[in-house]
């Protein structure tokens, strides 16, 4: 089971290591982790995706709540949220596969944001399963570098 935790924390030095350390020490998984400031400069938001059985997922929330730098936690399942990941990929191309790559990029609603004679930089901002799909498709060609944000998510709007 996967769960998404939106964790508001005090923007102090060492907080990221405390939270990450908690996951390491208790053997919780981090599938992805993204950190950024909020509208309040004193508060940062961490978006953590984790997987495990129900007891583990509940423990994660409780243990996070025990941390004195944690202000508030919201949790939700994948289907209750809108989640996005931004990814940049660099691929090597040749004349023969150039068209294939461009078609794939097009089909996946990704963009080519930089290009040289034999390299392309592709950007995609999409659901995590779709970014994973793009990796799979392009892997057959030749990805040389990847940078990605990890999953960002917010719960869907009220009806």
């Amino acid at each position: 089971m996967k769960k998404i935790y939106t964790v508001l924390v005090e923007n102090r030095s060492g907080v990221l290591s405390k939270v990450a350390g908690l996951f390491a020490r208790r053997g919780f998984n981090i599938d992805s982790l993204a950190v950024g400031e909020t509208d309040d400069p004193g508060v940062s938001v961490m978006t953590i995706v984790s997987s495990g059985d129900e007891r583990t997922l509940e423990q994660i929330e409780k243990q996070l709540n025990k941390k004195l730098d944690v202000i508030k936690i919201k949790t939700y399942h994948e289907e209750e949220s809108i989640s996005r990941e931004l990814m940049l990929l660099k691929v090597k191309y040749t004349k023969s596969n150039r068209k294939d790559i461009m078609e794939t990029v097009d089909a996946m609603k990704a963009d080519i944001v930089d290009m040289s004679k034999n390299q392309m930089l592709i950007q995609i901002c999409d659901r995590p399963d779709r970014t994973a799909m793009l990796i799979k498709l392009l892997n057959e060609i030749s990805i040389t570098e990847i940078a990605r944000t990890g999953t960002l998510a917010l719960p869907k709007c009220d009806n």
Partner: protein
Amino acid sequence: MNGADAMAKCLELENVKVVYGYPGVAIANFFDRLGNTGIRQVLVRTEQNAGHMASGYARTLGEVGVCAVTSGPGATNLLTGIATAYADSIPLVCISGQVESDLIGSDGFQEADVTGAAESFVKYSYLVKDVNDIPRVFKEAFYIANTGRRGPVLIDVPIDVQKAEIKNFQYPEEVSLRTYKPTVKGHVQQIKKAVSELKKAKRPLICAGGGIFLAGAKDELISFVTKHDIPLVHTMMGIGVLPTDHELNYGMVGNNGTVSANKAMQESDVIIMIGARVADRAVANPDTVLDNKVLVHIDVDPAEIGKNVGPAIPIVGDAKSILQDLVDTDFEIDTGKWREYLKQYRSIRERVRVSDKYVDPVAFVALLSMAMDDRSIYVADVGQNQIWSCRNANIRTGGRFYTSGGMGTMGYAIPAAIGAKMADEKRQVVAVCGDGGFQMSMMEFATMKEEGVDIKVVVLKNNYLGLVREYQHYSLNDRYEMVKLGTYPRLSDLARAYDIDYYLADGMEGLEEKIKDFLSAKNQAIMEVTVDANDTVK
């Protein structure tokens, strides 16, 4: 007023009476200014024991224990003391000196990232970067340590911050932390649910842990169990919540516990667990043990509920407040048959071996504890001595039993006993160690003498690391690797070196008299008890 003055002032305002510690250049300024206050400074012989002494002190008074050490090795030596306190939820404020702020991160002399190193076993930690933060940080630290689930808080103060002038010292009256608001009152609806389960119960049981002492909830617990005659079992940390011989006390649970307690756990239909964390040594397979029963779990730390055992009816809050609510709720249950049934297992006692060469540890612990004052404090170390003590010490009304339960830190007993005695000099305090744990802490005899603290120390001496040897006996084909301590040091000579009275018990004959003499010695005293290395706790 500089930072060091401010730190000392904060401790005064928190009504701290004793600081255990060890200086170094990075904390000397603080001790210098602490000397201007009436606070007693106790120089230990190694930093770990400053933590244990503060722990014994805190457990005796229910107040925060305080220790202070220097940067680098001073701080890392203290880590075991901090972790030991954390595992048993003992409130400590630990102060460490740190290298100059500018040097932090440069691997300077005696620099260690102690807040980083201690992160997983402190309740919270501070690295003070601005001298003006000192009053707020100290106020918060004491509040965090001794509210909610108790625990150690670390304050790391760079040397330049200790020396810097503080503009306006104002000690906050209140703590305002948006991220920390421990629950005290139990949820009314949840308490009702628990009571309705209890009403239906045929075989109700209370399992009490160390949280009872931490919450100061002993009286409320006794009122509750005696009001309804509910049988009680306890964890190792819960020894003494009811007197050992109380008719409702069925003993300690767990793989080192009593037959009656474990039977009661297995066969009960409603268990009320209070201030106990259901750790592996207490309940080996929590989920199977709790088949077909209703579990009501009362804990101040919501994360304990459902961590090792579940599902349960959770009641989050302070044990004292919740037990008072339970006492105030009127209902009737009849536990007569259930108690009658459990009684048959109560009489199962451990065997006592009679030998003229050795002292039987089971008999010894029973005799020792019976000869101690009712309001005495029995501090057990870790190992076989601890298990024998847990199972056979007789703790009466007002008596206490301390040990390092969660962390199992060898060498805890002597320093913790010293701290306990300093907290309440009227109480008799006895430390019981094996020869392994004793040698990890015997340097504190010097502290004990210099400070004039009168404790009695028992060494159950079998020349081996007994509990590991026992494991090797049962599980590693009697290959006794790395466990032979041998006969040194000669305790009689050691006692002379420290001007301590020495007693030897090397057989069962006249043992009771010897124990009486030992306990009534005017001076600090050590009793060497010759135990057969083949004696086991199993």
